[in-house]
């Protein structure tokens, strides 16, 4: 009987220590504690009183106030003030990357298209010039019976004959002459 009383007293003290440490939430008790103390709590009024006291303290702790709203708002303002430039930079940076990519694409593409157009035109003009020079110097037109209005004598001796003017037009020929000069 005395042994039983001693054992019970020891168990109640162990339960009190457990509650002082871990509170009343049994999910947070150490492994084995629940199985150990649940029978005691179910049967013993003193054990139930201890649990009730621990629950009251947990309820009291739950009354601890949270941070005041104005303080939270103040911190929020500080965060966005701090990040204001940073967020802008980050976004601007991100957007800039896109913008740079997009602008780079725009910059390269139009130039390449323009370059290709000029190259084609230059090739056509050069080919025409070569053909004209060859035909004029070899007398191909006369041999073929093709009259060349405005031409008299041989091309080689006619100072007024200008194949480039025939092919490219007077303006371009003038330019060529100017460059040559």
């Amino acid at each position: 009987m005395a042994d039983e009383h001693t054992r019970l007293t020891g168990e109640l003290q162990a339960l009190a220590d457990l509650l002082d440490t871990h509170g009343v939430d049994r999910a947070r008790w150490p492994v084995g504690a629940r199985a150990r103390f649940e029978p005691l709590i179910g049967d013993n009024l003193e054990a139930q009183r201890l649990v009730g006291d621990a629950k009251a303290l947990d309820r009291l702790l739950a009354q601890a106030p949270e941070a005041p709203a104005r303080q939270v708002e103040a911190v929020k303002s500080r965060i966005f003030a701090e990040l204001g430039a940073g967020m802008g930079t980050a976004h601007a940076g991100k957007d800039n990357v896109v913008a740079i990519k997009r602008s780079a694409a725009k910059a390269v593409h139009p130039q390449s298209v323009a370059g290709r157009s000029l190259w084609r035109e230059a090739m056509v003009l050069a080919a025409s010039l070569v053909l004209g020079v060859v035909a004029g110097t070899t007398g191909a037109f006369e041999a073929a019976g093709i009259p060349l209005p405005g031409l008299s004598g041989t091309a080689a001796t006619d100072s007024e004959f200008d194949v480039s003017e025939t092919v490219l037009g007077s303006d371009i020929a003038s330019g060529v002459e100017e460059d040559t000069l």
Partner: protein
Amino acid sequence: MAIDTRQGLDASTVQRNADHEDHLLVVRVAARDAQAFRVLVDRHLSGIVTLARRMLRDDAEAEDVAQETFLRLWRAGDDLELGAGGIRPWLRRVASNMCIDKIRAGRRLDVTDDVPEQVEPASQLRGLEQRELGARVQLGLDGLAERQRLALTLFHYEGRSLSEIGDVLGVSAEAVESLLARARRSLKSALALDWQALRPGHSDDR
């Protein structure tokens, strides 16, 4: 009991949904979505400020910690590694670690019995009596020795395990148990009238 169970399930569902939304927001924040970041701040800043206040017992330092916590979130970008718990425990872990760092920096080391700061009401909707009760609880918490308060805050309010708290405080799990027990006993003594008034009804918890 059935109502409690339904409420528990509903709360669980709500929490899962919130966690999922948080996850999506974090993904957007990693992609530098400022609007998503603002939503996360709205959702979690209050809890972080509260945690820092409880740990540091200093408004200015608590605000610094809360601010830096969210700045780290934003700056982490793609490098953010949340772990399995998601953003909420990540934020709280970062904040609590910063609080510990500040304490370790030497500002104060152990027991303090300073007059507690004026505690603000948690909500305008709370009655005067409840606000006063909250203020007394805060006063009691503030009156605890530093390590006791930290241990109790991390265990009771943050749900950290004994070993986690031991790692944070640099002590063994057994030492944390001792800190927790002393903290709760101190509070039971300091706030005896208050917790006794909150004792369960004669039959509802037995």
